[in-house]
């Protein structure tokens, strides 16, 4: 009995430590953003008890660099929303094709592995041709170039996730509609899509988060008008040393949307990341 309670205490201790470890940077960013400049460098961790929180940093940030941040947010939102939408539409179609049809010359399995292999392409390896191609197209510092880059980079992911979701929808429904004389496309629209809706939302949110956090392409393809939030953060630091308070406010702005959205859909992540290797390994 006693051994059991020691074990339980150890378990709890480990779980709590892991939780603190995971949450500390968020906590630090949030509390520091509410510290006055005098308190920032002191070892103070608990608001209200150890230091008096203030809105000063947030107000300064909005007054001084509000327009740059709003521009960055606007670009981030446009690039992420559009590319995530395209990923879900085109990836959804491809995923449906791979879930429902048999391809002969290149087997379904081969096409799937081809899509999967693209997940491993390092962005840096295509950054130079991307830069030159978009320069020739006149799309440097234009959100369109980011949308294109993000869409092609994340389509493989959405295709794999959505294929798995379509696989989970019973074929019989579609077959009976096919017998009744519906066309493939209207079946897809009227029967399959509504049933797959939760999965589509999940794939959309994950693609949104991936695009929102992307940095390298935004760094090389934009410089003023099309900069996204990560580039705004990276560019601001050099102005005058390390401004703890502004780093914290901006980080919170950058971190919040994808973290909040993506924690809702974590159970769909595994498929896209591992291609069912986990489930299949039973």
């Amino acid at each position, binding site marked *: 009995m006693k051994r059991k309670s020691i074990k339980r205490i150890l*378990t*709890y201790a*480990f*779980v709590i430590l*892991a939780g603190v470890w*995971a*949450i500390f*940077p*968020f906590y*630090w960013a949030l509390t520091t953003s509410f510290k006055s400049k005098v308190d920032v*460098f*002191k*070892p103070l*961790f608990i608001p209200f008890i150890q230091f008096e929180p203030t809105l000063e940093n947030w107000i300064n940030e909005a007054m001084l660099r509000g327009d740059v941040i709003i521009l960055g947010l606007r670009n981030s939102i446009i690039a992420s929303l559009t590319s995530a939408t395209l990923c879900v539409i*085109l990836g959804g*179609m*491809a995923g449906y*094709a791979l879930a429902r*049809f048999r391809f002969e010359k290149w087997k379904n*399995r081969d*096409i799937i*592995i081809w899509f999967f292999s*693209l997940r*491993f392409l390092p962005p*840096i*390896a*295509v*950054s*130079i*041709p991307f*830069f*030159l191609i978009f320069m020739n197209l006149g799309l440097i510092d234009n959100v369109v170039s980011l949308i294109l880059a993000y*869409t092609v980079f994340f389509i*493989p992911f959405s295709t794999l996730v959505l294929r798995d979701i379509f696989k989970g929808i019973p074929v019989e429904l579609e077959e009976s509609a096919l017998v009744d004389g519906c066309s493939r*496309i209207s079946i897809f629209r009227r029967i399959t899509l509504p049933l797959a809706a939760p999965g589509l939302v999940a794939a959309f949110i994950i693609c949104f988060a991936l695009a*929102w*956090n992307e940095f*390298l392409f935004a760094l*090389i393809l934009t410089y003023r008008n099309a900069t996204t939030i*990560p580039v705004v*953060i*990276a560019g601001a630091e050099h102005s005058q040393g390390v401004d*703890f308070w502004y*780093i914290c406010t*901006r*980080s919170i702005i950058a*971190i919040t949307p994808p*973290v909040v959205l993506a*924690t809702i859909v*974590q159970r769909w992540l*595994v498929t896209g*990341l*591992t*291609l069912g*290797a*986990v*489930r*299949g*390994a*039973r």
Partner: protein
Amino acid sequence: MSKEERAKYFFLLPAVVLILSFLIFPLIYSAYLSVTDWQIGKAPEIIGFSNYLKVFTDRRVHNALSFTLLFMVFTILIETPFALGVAVLSQLRFPGNTIFKVIFTAPFFTSPIALSYLSITIFYEEGGPLNNLLKLLFNIKIPWISNPDYAFLSLCLIDIWQWTPFLYIIFLAGLQSLPREPYEAATIDGASSFQAFRYITIPLLMPVILTGMLLKMIESLKVFDIIYALTGGGPGISTESYTMYIYKTGFRFFRLGYAASLSYILLIILMILFTVLAFRLRKVYYE
């Protein structure tokens, strides 16, 4: 072509065509670049494979490759047991279990750039929270970013914070798919929970663990954002990853041809790793 035939290509082709024109074509273009001596402000001239030969004698390539390799091995050796431990424990029922899962996976969705700049403040040497805490407890001060070894450690800590959740998600899914019977049999035979873990969970989960490690290895080779933001490859070139060196060659020194051939070497390394993975996948993924 029958109607059914047409439909299947109608669904598949848009994605494939987009990928071919905006991903595969750039790669082919980059293969051409890699055999030229193109620099900005100079017409490209085909010079054959001498870029690739230069790679073998470039000391910065050796430095970058050994940093990347060390980074990959070091992080994976810590992340794997950490993620496995947390995954096994969060299988147990305790109050707040669901909230714990959400908290522990949140780092994975955090913007690496925001995280790295936050880390600059956290690792700050004079008055950063970490050094403040260490000073309070042990009265020591650690040069987290300005010393090469500690800079390496700082980068590893960030990577561990961000990528342990990735392995955790995978291991958790693996654990949930394990059969119940061996555990029931072990309980009847009076095995302790540690013995069950050691002799049932580990062997059964091994394929999942290896796959997870392989996936993370491939991701480690792509590490860029945190290095760009936290150390910029420094102090000196001590934390310059291979990707960072490609970036500098292409976008700071403007030697596009050489950068393209460096990229191709990375692609070859990744292709080898991926082939190992694809071989495993083809076996489990039979259709």
